[in-house]
């Protein structure tokens, strides 16, 4: 149950991450066109934010022993998802012609729009690693499974958004709905504590959040 919950978290965040990447390219197309520069900018921003997110998520994972931080991170991502359809387009239009026509303009816009939400989603993986960790003898298989499941989420996010969502659902609606799902997921993690069980250090932490494990 505990593992299922964590794997579901991984697959959902993976889905939202790549769906936002595909939809994000379409989102900025009316302003920046659909050239290779657009794709380069989008991919740069998402990979870069993963890189920063991994570092930040790792630090948080070391310090926390429950899933509360995870909940807040996912909730933060959800909030950004919900608000992108609101501020995204006015922000891009507001950048003005000099940015719209410059080759680096799309990189700038993609950074403004997508760096923070994808960075927050990038933080999820290292925190999950800490939570699924059950002992040094299993570290390979547990993290491997976690990554695999996260990547399945990525694949689904790409395929479903490209083949299904783009054709039938307005981009804004999809992003807001994904935001709502992320918010709900974040709330669940805040509400239902999961404790890290791995014997990483001998340091014992006073357990203030008494309660059952999910």
């Amino acid at each position, binding site marked *: 149950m505990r593992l299922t919950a964590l794997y579901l978290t991984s697959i959902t965040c993976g889905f939202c991450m790549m769906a936002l990447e595909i939809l994000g390219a379409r989102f900025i197309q009316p302003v920046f066109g659909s050239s290779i520069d657009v794709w380069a900018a989008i991919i740069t921003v998402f990979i870069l934010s993963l890189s920063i997110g991994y570092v930040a998520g790792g630090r948080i994972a070391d310090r926390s022993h429950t899933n509360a931080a995870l909940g807040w991170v996912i909730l933060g991502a959800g909030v950004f998802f919900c608000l992108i359809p609101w501020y995204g387009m006015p922000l891009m239009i507001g950048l003005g012609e000099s940015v719209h026509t410059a080759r680096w303009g799309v990189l700038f816009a993609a950074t403004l729009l997508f760096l923070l939400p994808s960075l927050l989603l990038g933080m999820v993986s290292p925190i999950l690693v800490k939570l699924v960790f059950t002992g040094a003898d299993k570290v390979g298989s547990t993290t491997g499974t976690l990554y695999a499941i996260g990547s399945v989420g990525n694949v689904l996010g790409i395929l479903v958004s490209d083949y299904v969502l783009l054709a039938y659902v307005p981009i804004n609606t999809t992003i807001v709905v994904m935001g*709502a799902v992320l918010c709900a997921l974040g709330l669940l993690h805040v509400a239902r504590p999961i404790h890290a069980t791995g014997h990483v250090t001998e340091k014992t932490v006073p357990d203030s959040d008494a309660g059952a494990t999910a």
Partner: protein
Amino acid sequence: MRLILAIAIAVIAITCGAVFQYKPYHTYEIAYGDQHPLNHRESAYSSITWMVSDDDNFQQMKFFDRVEGGICLRPTWDDLIALAQKEPSLRHLVPDAAARPKPMRGGPDWPHTWLPDAGTVTNSPYIRLFPIGVLLNNDVMTRAGGDPQKADVKIMVVGLGSGIGIANLAHHFPLASITVVDIDQVVEDMVRDHYPVLAWLLTQKLPSGEPRLRFEVRDARQFVRYDAKREKRPYDMLILDAYTSGSTIPPHLMTVEFFSECAGILSPDGIVFANVIGSLTGDKRLVSGGAMRSFRAAGLTHLWNFPILLPGEGPGTLKPEQSRNNIVICSRKPVDPRQNEAGWERLKHFEPYPQLARGSSISAGYVLANETVYNSALLPASLIDAALPTLKGRMLSQPRDGNKLNYAQVWFTKDRELIDQVFRVAQEAVTKGTLSELPKGWKDRGAAVNLERRETDWVLAARELFRFVVQIARDPNYSGEALVGPLEAERAAVRAPTWTIKDAPLFTDQMPNADIFNN
């Protein structure tokens, strides 16, 4: 406590997202003067809208807010069918009453009860040049005895757009068999549903059994490499007119390798007709120059360029730094005026839309101007004419400069009282609801000192542009040789680079960067 805070944040975020999400700019939501959206659809590649204006006499397809080839509403298909009673040369556009497709109902924002059923006349300049690709093909034209009506030409068009280019070809070449390759199913559906002439052509067969028109939903690269190669008869003409919504040519359709694949499906006299937006000396020279150099490298060594004139330009007044449509014609056989004299003779004598009378396709409207520039968009003429029937007679006719491309016939007045009257009529029309919104510049009477009535005759415009472009293209300064120099193999032997676009890149599959040079 924290949980409540978290719930509050989530609820606020979701509510804000759902309620305040930005309604993006949509062409289909815009009604502007007498312009209204006939229909709108989204595809994986673009956001597609049909816009229609009765007084401005157009039905145009928009990708986001960029306009594809514009179709004139008049003469309607009905007009052409009626004309065919007297003009046997139009019989090929007359359907059986039973087989005649009707236009599909308009979308939710279409306010009128009538539906456009446009004919074959265009208001887009470069579209009018489509016939030159057939006329310069000596093999096809000799077989036809020099008569376009008998040219059994097999044509591939890459990139459909509004479909007006196909209609133009079908008008002038009744025996043409046309294959359209487009990557976007939604574009093809939109054309089929709202451009009945094309919907009908899709159902027609030539005496030879070939279809008059077929639509293929494929990437052109795949179609040329696999499907086209398997066909028995080679193509006589290939029109490359694929553009993305960002107005750049898809880079994989602008490489030496693709062009050689195109050459592989052409008949020996076959011609590639490419619509390349670029300039001759300015920033965009790298796009047009790169295209020309790449065509030659692909074995289509005989190459000639037809720069499409902009309004106000004429023989001797072409601005080479200006970005424009260029029609690049290339072939394995000579296409230049000296070696292909017969072809150029046909260009000289070709009259676009020979059956159509002057005045059969008119756009009319009023614009406000100060002393030097227009400060308004076109206000529908029918509205003003109904309220002020004597107005046109009280305006002065502006003489035209016969050496410059000047589509519109202009009447003007500086009479303050007349201008005020027109202004009031426009405002009343909006109050009464007969006009959706005042066109740009009409909201404020402002400093306008000049009122102009502009009438454009699109049949005359087609003839004028064709004549001018052919006349200007004769100038060897615009030929491929003058623009991108001799063939690669012969370059070493040429001492001084005497050509204009000295830094033209070569677009290859390894460096397919036409879109990047376009930025």
